[in-house]
């Protein structure tokens, strides 16, 4: 049974809390990405699962077994390290075979398994080379091969693609996803690259300062960010977050003072029940419609900087109140610098966050 469960897992280094009360469960065959900026505790969490860090409090349960006190070698976990951690003095083949020695299998069987994995990852040609003599992409595949050559309880990946160039990264994402799909194990991937997380994960756990902010499917975390941080962290270009004041809520429409400009936005009932009028409005750059005339339902802004992105164009605009907002418009719509824009936010993609930063959502 391949599952991972963390219950209130906490790691402290003296006074510093690297991970606080982390709750996470990964089902068999599920891929969970730990996503967050550097220093957020995602690697610590991964290492707690692996047994490379002792857990300060809470529980680590792998395959239904409490693992808190077990050293890594007894947890039966496969892991791919950030810098691959290939054994520099061993050939690629020997590197891949390294985890198999524990199983005390015959040399022929070992070779067969190494060859099979090498074939899956296209490493057949370099099996006899030293790690120092192969390319970066091959090294990465060797690291993956060394992990999947076993039949472990689960897989852990620490920033597996961070050292590859963009193109390689793209193709490796696909390959790894495919391999993992076939293996059907509980898998945790640590990454700071949201694209990686969004494409590879079944679910994403977003961490900040040692705390999991939100766990959800890629769609959930994008469409329904739990708080300001998740909203800002997921999605490119970044979500526009503007501090505003709720002046009135009537019939599902909120009147908001948008830094000097009042606009009305259709939103949910809970917004009306907020205790504090201080809110943050989050609107994704693609959720604007440019309108011909100014109205109370659109935001007045002046285009300041135009960045063509190919199919679309990113416009940096400045509102009357002095806020910078990012707007993505179709390529056909030629916006000029200095042009006045009347931007109407899509109510379905407009997120209201309360004073505590949490999303106000039904």
């Amino acid at each position, binding site marked *: 049974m391949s599952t991972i469960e963390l219950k209130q897992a906490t790691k402290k280094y003296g006074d510093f809390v690297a991970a606080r009360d982390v709750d996470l469960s990964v089902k068999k065959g599920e891929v969970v990405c730990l996503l967050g900026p550097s220093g957020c505790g995602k690697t610590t969490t991964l290492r707690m699962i*692996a*047994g*490379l860090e002792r857990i300060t409090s809470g529980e680590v349960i792998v395959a239904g077994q409490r693992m808190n006190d077990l*050293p*890594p*070698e007894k947890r*039966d*976990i*496969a*892991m791919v*390290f950030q*810098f691959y*951690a290939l*054994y*520099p*003095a*061993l050939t690629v083949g*020997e590197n891949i075979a*390294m*985890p198999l*020695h*524990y199983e005390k299998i015959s040399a022929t069987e070992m070779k067969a398994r190494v060859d099979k994995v090498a074939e899956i990852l296209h490493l057949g040609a370099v099996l006899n080379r*030293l790690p120092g003599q192969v390319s970066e992409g091959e090294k990465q595949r060797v690291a993956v091969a*060394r992990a999947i050559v076993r039949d472990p309880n689960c897989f852990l990946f620490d920033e597996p693609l961070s050292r590859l160039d963009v193109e390689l990264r793209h193709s490796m994402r696909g390959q790894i996803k495919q391999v993992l799909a076939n293996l059907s194990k509980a898998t945790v991937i640590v990454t700071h690259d949201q694209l990686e997380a969004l494409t590879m994960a079944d679910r994403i756990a977003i961490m900040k300062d040692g705390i999991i902010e939100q766990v959800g499917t890629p769609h959930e975390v994008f469409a329904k960010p739990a708080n300001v941080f998740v909203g800002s962290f997921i999605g490119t270009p970044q979500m526009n977050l503007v501090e505003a004041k709720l002046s009135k809520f009537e019939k599902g429409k909120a009147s908001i003072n948008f830094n000097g400009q009042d606009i009305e936005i259709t939103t949910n009932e809970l917004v009306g029940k907020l205790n504090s009028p201080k809110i943050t409005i989050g609107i994704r750059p693609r959720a604007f419609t440019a309108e011909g005339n100014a109205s109370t339902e659109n935001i007045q802004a002046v285009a300041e900087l135009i960045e063509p992105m190919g199919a679309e164009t990113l416009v940096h605009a400045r509102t009357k109140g002095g806020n910078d907002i990012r707007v993505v418009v179709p390529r056909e719509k030629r916006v000029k610098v200095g042009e006045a824009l009347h931007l109407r936010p899509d109510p379905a993609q407009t997120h209201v966050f309360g004073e505590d930063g949490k999303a106000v959502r039904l």
Partner: protein
Amino acid sequence: MTSTTAQTIPTTFTTVAPDNWKLAIVVGLVVSLLACLILPPNISFWIVGAMVAMVAMTFVVNAYHRHYYGGLLVSPAIAVLVVMNIFPLLWSLGLSFFAYQSNQQTIRFVGLANYVKILTDDLKAPENWANLTNTAMFVVLTVTAQMIVGFLLALMFAKQFPLRKYLLILVLTPMMLSVVAVGVFFSNYYDPTFGLLSYFIRLFTGEQFILMDNKAGAVAGIVFADAWMWSPFVMLLVLAGLVSVPKYLYEAAAIDRVSGWRRFWSITFPYIRGLLMLALLFRTIEAFKMADLVILLTKGGNGTMTISYHLIRIANEQNKTSEGAAISYVMLFIVIVLTNLYLYIANRRTEGA
């Protein structure tokens, strides 16, 4: 490898040009050799000096012409080595073909007679052979002891623990001592009447303990003192290798459930192999030269006479300069063969792996 843009000025071997260093070396060697053979030392010295200067000049000019910084960088070291080391070495090599005693001012060319004498003379050859065997024994025993003890000490200090720094310096201290002090004090520790060793053994046996009155004891005493003094050298090199193994490799090994033995050979050992080789190389070279401790502890008695001590007696006390030079070049030959063997094995391993 980076390469500098070299504008090679075509010179053939025979061209007399200020940058034709090959010709200069050949001419220099021939002239120096002739000078050493024909002229008295105090004249040939200056001639050899001039030849060295000439060769050095050609190197520098050549290097300059070719924008060849390597030559310029290496030349000061080569100059110092040639003058202070290589020249005296060649001089004594030359002397080994003469009948020359430093306390008599006559010199006569005898070809290989000195070598023949030390290798075949019915009185000298067995002695030389015995001394060489003893030396080989000391090399094997001391170097092995140093490698093992140094290695174990390094393992002990490989991990970070409280006060490590202060304990480490204690273990490093023996190699900072002067050999004279070590020899004199160890002879005291081994002394049957005044020695600590005898004192402790006597607590159990009631008898004064005489360590050095037989070959096994005398050899053990010398090997112990030498290994004690120089194991820290090996330790320091090995330790440096151990601490340079990245931590994540051990983590990966833990994840891969690699056994301790395999972890050592596959991960740790490759990091210390080069350093072990260097330690082995330098300790072997030094062990061949072992004389001081032997002189201070046994005076070469009880089957502890080494070739190096023998050499000191021949070349210094008895002033048989030529015979001494011949012995030392036979010894040099052996050391060169041995060290090359080491290097050959080490290089083959690295390339093969």
